[in-house]
């Protein structure tokens, strides 16, 4: 990572330059970052943050290690696999306590739970970790069609089953009058976080910046979910003209409805929180299905010094 060379003498502290690469085109699922950016929380924390949008083939992990970017977004299980494959990255904070990925199906197709997927064809990401875990847990076998991010085949075929973001696709298919049901993947018992992570190198060299980024992001997220979203939404729309207000509202309400971002307060979950136990559980599950040849230590993917001080407490300034 490179730092901005702003002279320190007497002036403001030099800002650390940070690029966050998201996992998709700008959308409400990135709202908190945009909020923090729009409201200047990053700047207040001494960071010069810019957000790069991802897309269908974002290779964020590699870019992280090349030093092209400093943070990116992904599921915690993918981060674990990334580390296991020898890419030294580290999780810094959770943007969602529960992953928004879900299975979407037509109401009339006779699916009520995961068990009913047995023998069916599901359009999803090949190689996704939830597949073998789900198959194992429910004793089912599915066949897979690669996800093409389109929806017309789902609409055309009443028996079509497709993976989706619960905050996203249901909006469009419902608009076309489809009567659909969804199953959140985290209900399978395999519940990864959606996290932001950085390279070990950057974290070691700039622990302050990482902590500051996490704190400002959490602040942004809290405000995006609970406060006035206009600033963030304007920025999102600027980055992605396809974002209609109606759609963004839907996304936010879905995130709220399924307690995706802050999690379940009853369980003590909150914005940004990462619990090592959950990471350990995910590692165990990944070993069980053979994705990991040998178990990792939680410390391989987490660095306690970087995480928020304690569950539930206010974000550090």
């Amino acid at each position, binding site marked *: 990572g490179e730092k901005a060379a702003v002279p320190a003498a007497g002036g403001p502290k030099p800002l650390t330059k940070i690029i966050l690469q998201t996992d998709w085109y700008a959308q409400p699922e990135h709202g908190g970052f945009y909020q923090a950016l729009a409201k200047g929380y990053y700047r207040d924390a001494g960071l010069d943050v810019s957000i790069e949008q991802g897309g269908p083939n974002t290779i964020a992990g590699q870019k992280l290690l090349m030093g092209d970017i400093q943070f990116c977004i992904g599921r915690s299980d993918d981060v674990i696999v990334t580390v296991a494959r020898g890419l030294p990255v580290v999780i810094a904070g959770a943007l969602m306590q529960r992953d928004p990925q879900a299975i979407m199906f037509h109401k009339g197709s006779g699916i009520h739970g995961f068990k009913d997927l047995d023998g069916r064809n599901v359009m999803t990401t090949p190689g996704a970790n939830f597949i073998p875990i789900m198959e194992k847990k429910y004793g089912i076998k599915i066949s897979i069609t690669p996800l093409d991010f389109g929806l017309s085949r789902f609409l055309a075929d009443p028996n079509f089953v497709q993976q989706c973001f619960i905050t996203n696709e249901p909006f*469009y298919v419902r608009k076309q009058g489809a009567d659909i049901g969804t199953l959140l993947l985290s209900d399978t018992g395999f519940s990864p976080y959606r996290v932001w992570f950085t390279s070990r190198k950057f974290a070691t060299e700039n622990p302050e910046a990482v902590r500051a980024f996490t704190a400002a992001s959490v602040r942004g997220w809290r405000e995006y979910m609970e406060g006035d979203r206009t600033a963030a939404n304007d920025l999102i729309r600027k980055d992605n003209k*396809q974002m209609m207000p109606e759609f963004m509202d839907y996304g936010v309400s879905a995130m709220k409805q399924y307690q995706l971002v802050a999690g379940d307060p009853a369980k003590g979950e909150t914005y940004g929180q990462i619990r090592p136990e959950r990471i350990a559980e995910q590692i165990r599950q990944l070993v069980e299905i053979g994705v990991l040849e040998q178990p990792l230590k939680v410390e391989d993917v987490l660095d306690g010094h970087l995480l928020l001080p304690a569950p539930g407490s206010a974000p550090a300034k």
Partner: protein
Amino acid sequence: MKRLRSWINPLCAGALLIALWYTVRRVCHVEAWLLPTPGEILKAAWQERSTLFAAVLITSRGAMLGFLMAVGGGFLLAMVLGFSRLIKESFYPYILIMQMMPVTILAPIFVLWLGQGLPSIVAITFMIGFFPIVANTTMGFISVDRNLQELFLMCKATRGQEIRYLRIPGAMPYFLTGMKIAGTLAPIGAIVGDFLAGSTINGQGGIGYMTLAYSSQLKTPALFATGFVACLLGFIFVGGVNLLHWYLLHKWHDSLVKKE
């Protein structure tokens, strides 16, 4: 009169195809979100005109640069291969590998080395378009009339002269055909590039991005409009190549000369 006919025929055929299209929609009960009618597509194109226009501008840059590089690079490569049997024998298999290696696998490397956006898109377009040119031009080079080769031997022509004055002009019909194929592949290449290595600039993506966005939003008419816009882009390439074809060959080549 002749010129008129050359417009009327495709128009009639087009009308026929459109009629067929509407019939399919009716008879097979296909829905708009799967196969919109030309009318719906036009309407969507009009509604989205500013977005589409901006997308085309972005993509056409990548397609054009990639196409030009494929043409230039393919031609040069074919020339090198034609120049030396040794090089051809040694490296042709690896050129084939490069062509046949799925671009999805190489895309991450491009992105990391060239960065997200235009350079990577151009590289991907190049990858997709250059082989037809290499294959055709090489075939043109080695198909040169033996008798003319003997003439050049008698002239003590250097290898370079032989290539310049004999093989290149002789291979033109093949080269231009390769260019035509590359021209149809260039927009596709840029779209694939957009998928694999694109980025949105000021919130505006290229055609590849738009197809993804529209298809994930179920805006099928707009999706098809995007497709046709991509075709229009392709027509510009193919039209340009056809003009070049005419310009270079109409004086002498059997495909164009009107012998009375």
